[in-house]
């Protein structure tokens, strides 16, 4: 049975976030039903409103995942009256979220203490690269820098190569943690009636992703960059197959799974080989085993082998491109992939919810990316009660701009 409401139905967020990490956090909350009012302005256009030549996009985006589901209003926050209007939106919201460099919200007159004057039980999320305080709090950063500072970048890579740049997933992992913290604070507010301020540092999310290695480090123990290898499991790797750039991932946890793997690959002769017949032996001879696996899999069909291994109980999956994902019946059946309205591409897919709720209404991407200022009738008109003439005046003076 489905109730009509989404889990966060009725929760409203005043969204000052920019770039990727913060907007992804509020996008997650929007997927769960929160109403997100995104502030943007022609005075400082959001990245999605501009060309993005470095990535080959020569005009504004027609679809931007992190802005999907959101309402858009224009406010030129360089002007005092625009700041006052933003405060009026905060006053009727549950949450304010921002992702400027530490100190910017205060300069704008929109810091937590000020906003609490208009919304005494406000939950506010400040998401930044290094946090709101400390010697590095003024540092500017992007996702790869969070990965570098926090330690995830240095531990990722080929064991004999350089560290790896962690890209958008570093931003978005930070946004995920921000979304979680916000809902925890909402639950706390329901119990206490009090405000809460959440200070999230993206570089600390990077560190949280290597929390086990940091326990090792704190105990004075070395941590090596493992590449695709694993200390406990062998074989555990990514292997080339008969098709070009089609790699098969396999992780074998125990003797039973190893015997199953040998059966599927028709290499039963190795079942009694003393180099490989126990977990310890396989670990000790993992390089040799990897060499054999590379030979054995070189003539295999990647998808067919993955399927056969999975049916027999061995963890395997092809290293999938985004196109493979777009074609996947499993992800479509779960509505993880959804079609969105897009003028440039009617078949465009977006990534919806990783979860299916038994009672709440369907979560996920329910509408595409808003046009700049498209929701001002609702936000400035209905919610704030500004009439047409007042709005026109504010537009002429480039406050709503």
């Amino acid at each position: 049975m489905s109730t009509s409401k989404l889990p966060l139905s009725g929760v409203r967020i005043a969204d000052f976030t920019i770039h990727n990490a913060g907007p992804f956090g509020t996008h997650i909350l929007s997927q769960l039903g929160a109403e997100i009012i995104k502030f943007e302005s022609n005075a400082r256009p959001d990245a999605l409103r501009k060309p993005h030549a470095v990535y080959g996009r020569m005009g504004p985006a027609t679809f931007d995942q992190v802005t999907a589901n959101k309402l858009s209003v224009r406010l030129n926050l360089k002007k005092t009256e625009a700041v006052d209007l933003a405060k009026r939106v905060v006053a009727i919201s549950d949450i304010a979220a921002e992702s400027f460099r530490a100190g910017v919200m205060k300069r704008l007159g929109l810091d937590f203490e000020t906003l609490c004057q208009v919304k005494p039980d406000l939950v506010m999320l400040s998401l930044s690269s290094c946090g709101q305080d400390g010697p590095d709090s003024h540092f500017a950063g992007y996702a790869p820098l969070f990965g570098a500072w926090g330690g995830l970048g240095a531990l990722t890579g080929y064991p004999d190569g350089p560290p790896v740049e962690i890209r958008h997933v570093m931003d978005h992992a930070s946004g995920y943690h921000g979304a979680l913290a916000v809902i925890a604070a909402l639950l706390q507010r329901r119990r206490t009636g009090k405000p809460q301020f959440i200070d999230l540092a993206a570089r600390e999310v990077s560190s949280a992703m290597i929390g086990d290695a940091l326990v090792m480090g704190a105990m004075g123990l070395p941590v090596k960059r493992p590449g695709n290898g694993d200390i406990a499991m062998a074989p555990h790797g990514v292997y080339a197959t008969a098709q070009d750039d089609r790699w098969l991932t396999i992780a074998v946890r125990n003797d039973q799974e190893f015997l199953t793997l040998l059966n599927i690959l028709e290499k039963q002769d190795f079942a009694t080989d003393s180099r490989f017949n126990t977990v310890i032996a396989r670990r000790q001879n993992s390089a040799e085993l990897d060499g054999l696996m590379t030979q054995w899999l070189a003539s295999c069909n990647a998808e067919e082998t993955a399927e056969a291994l999975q049916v027999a109980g061995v963890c395997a999956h092809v290293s999938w491109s985004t196109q493979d994902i777009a074609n996947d019946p499993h992800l479509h059946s779960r509505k993880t992939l959804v079609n969105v309205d897009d003028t440039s591409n009617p078949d465009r897919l977006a990534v919806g919810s990783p979860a299916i709720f038994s009672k709440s209404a369907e979560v996920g991407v329910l509408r595409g990316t808003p046009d700049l200022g498209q929701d001002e009738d609702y936000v400035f008109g209905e919610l704030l009660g500004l009439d047409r003439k007042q709005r026109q005046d504010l537009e002429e003076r480039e406050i709503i701009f």
Partner: protein
Amino acid sequence: MQDLKESHTDSLPLAGYRVLERSRGAATAYAGRLMATLGATVILMEPETGSPLRQAPPWLDDDEQQSALFAYLSVGKRSLICNLETAAGKQLFNQQLQNADIFIDDTPVAERETLGLTPKAIAEKFPNLIHVSLLPFGATGPKADWDGEELNIVHAGSEGYLLPNGFAQESFPERGPLKMYGHFAEYQGGVYAATAALSALWSAPVSGGQYIDVSSQAAVLLCGAYAMQRLGDGSLEHRATRKFRYGGVFKTADGYIQLLTLEDRQWQGTVELMGNPEWAKAEWLQDPLERSRRGDEINHHIREWMAQHSVEDIVSKAQELGVPAAKYRNPEDVIAGEQEAFRGLFETTTLENGQQTEILLAPFRFKFSPLHFTGGVPALNELAQPTRAGDINT
């Protein structure tokens, strides 16, 4: 059995909430860990042999008995042995569920019927419970019975195929794609499952209890959704081409740094950082599009310069000039970091064997409710024992 008194956690965001966790994998354990650190009472329901995560690498001892991963993921939780194949175990489980707000479980779908863990069986007995299933591919759909370790999940969710990128890929173009360190994809499943569980708690006054089916594959896919957006733009991303045209990872005289110059002013700052060299005065370098086209040439020059300077010198000067640059820090650097110490990122706690160590607390701070561990790393079944060393309120 002890009473669970929670006065010491009253001020935490999730104070008063109870979570039961059955976990084999890092995803579910991370979801429980996040909720425990936010103040919920999280009880690990373990088999008699203990959670498999107690044996998971990396290990703190040569005997492979002390898992650093388990320590990280279970600090602050409680532990109870609960064997669902026995009548006594089932009774204990039902007693615990009676008082729980959330039950999170990664038991494979095929095993749920006999153990009484199907959504239907749970909902009939506990209509107000938030029941979260977290599996590598979810509990419904054609691949619901597929199993996966982190290696498989991160490659099933597309980020694996796109790694490595930049300098690492250029260094070894013939090599295959790569997972990230540790349990990144599973942690996205975990943080999302916790988020979904709390959002269902929020709506419980309207919806009551419900069942939520979460997939780690889908969570890491959503985390990397930009690649799907690019596909809609007509561009299929590949690790060989997903790179910044110039900037990226550089080897210095004593380590690696990350340098990014997305804005024109940051490029100008980079030129100043390098002491305004002759090559940087060429006319074409004034045009951002031309710089992108000839990024390899630029990186060649930057590499030469970087190799002669130390990380600390480069990074401190770069930040002064407004050039985004960061050292690739090892775990030791993070542990000894001034910023981390200032913000209290680590907290001293007690391992199962009584040793003290520092463990990362949480990547967020709550101004009015400073987070803290509410207990150490739990010994197996400690909650069934009359006392626990170091336990508050016992």
